[in-house]
């Protein structure tokens, strides 16, 4: 490690504020982008799965209705 102590590391030779603000903002941007994209992907996948499920339920209901009708006649 370049610094002698942890306090020295935090102080960054009087440039602590600048260094930590720059790194902090970078971390916020990277993590923010990651989590926003991930939640968007998940919700799109979820919606598509529900839509498929709904389509299949409709098909099953259609078959059942058709079979019901053919049994009656």
């Amino acid at each position, binding site marked *: 490690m370049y610094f002698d102590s942890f306090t020295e590391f935090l102080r960054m030779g009087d440039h602590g504020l600048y260094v930590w603000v720059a*790194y902090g903002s*970078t971390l916020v941007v990277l993590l923010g982008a990651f989590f926003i994209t991930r939640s968007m992907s998940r919700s799109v996948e979820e919606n*598509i799965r529900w839509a498929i499920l709904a389509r*299949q339920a409709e098909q099953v209901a*259609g078959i059942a209705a058709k079979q019901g009708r053919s049994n009656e006649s």
Partner: protein
Amino acid sequence: MKLNQKLKEYWHKLGSPRWFYEITTNWVTFFGIGALLLLVTGLVWGLAFAPADYQQGNSFRIMYVHVPAAMVAQSLYIGMGVAGFIGLVWRMKLTDVAIGACLPLGMVLTALALFTGGVWGKPTWGSWWEWDGRTVSTLVLLFLYIGIYALREAIPDLDLRARASALVCLVGTVNIPIIKYSVEWWNTLHQSASFSLTEKPAMPVEMWLPLLIMGLGFYCFAGHQVLSRMRLEVLTREANSRWVAEVMLSKGAPAAVMQPSTTDTTDHGKD
């Protein structure tokens, strides 16, 4: 002749959303893991182990986030320009998806580069903002990103939106060489390039190696983000197609969904 045909086949496949979606499944994971490893290594190294600059002291450590952010922001714009060109010439739909995926990350990274630049400028130049060639051309890049974003939001028609944004992306690429050579063309405060392809870096190894790692980490992160967003857009656009249903059902769907097979339901109309 054979190679030519192979290339042609590949080119056509590139336009297929299903092929794109399936081939990039592993790439996303690969870039994600790469980004995590490289960024953590680079951050720790740059913050705690690299030696301080003899003139700038510890504020030079801002370089490790400022330079990669600016590099990737410009690269993403170049990517959008190339995608715009291909989209205009060959009418490939995937290129518009690519533009839409590069846009948000490119925008925030440009903003980040400007912000960290200001934070670095304060202790080094004595000012948060200087009207110098590099900062102004980067500000123009930010406005280009914002402009294209606004344009895309304003046009609901997919086809028109694709063509309009492709054109602006393409035209806007003239700004990239301006950013690149701004430090040479104008006598400015901004320091010149840290890396070049032809010369050895002016910094010692223990200073530029963490920068290289951070740069690669940022590129991996961008790869992960752009591909994820492209995949999500492809899924949204193709939501009702058969292949999306197949792909979605094959990965982790509840068992009940798997039961009614779609093939035997379609034939029932006959009997």
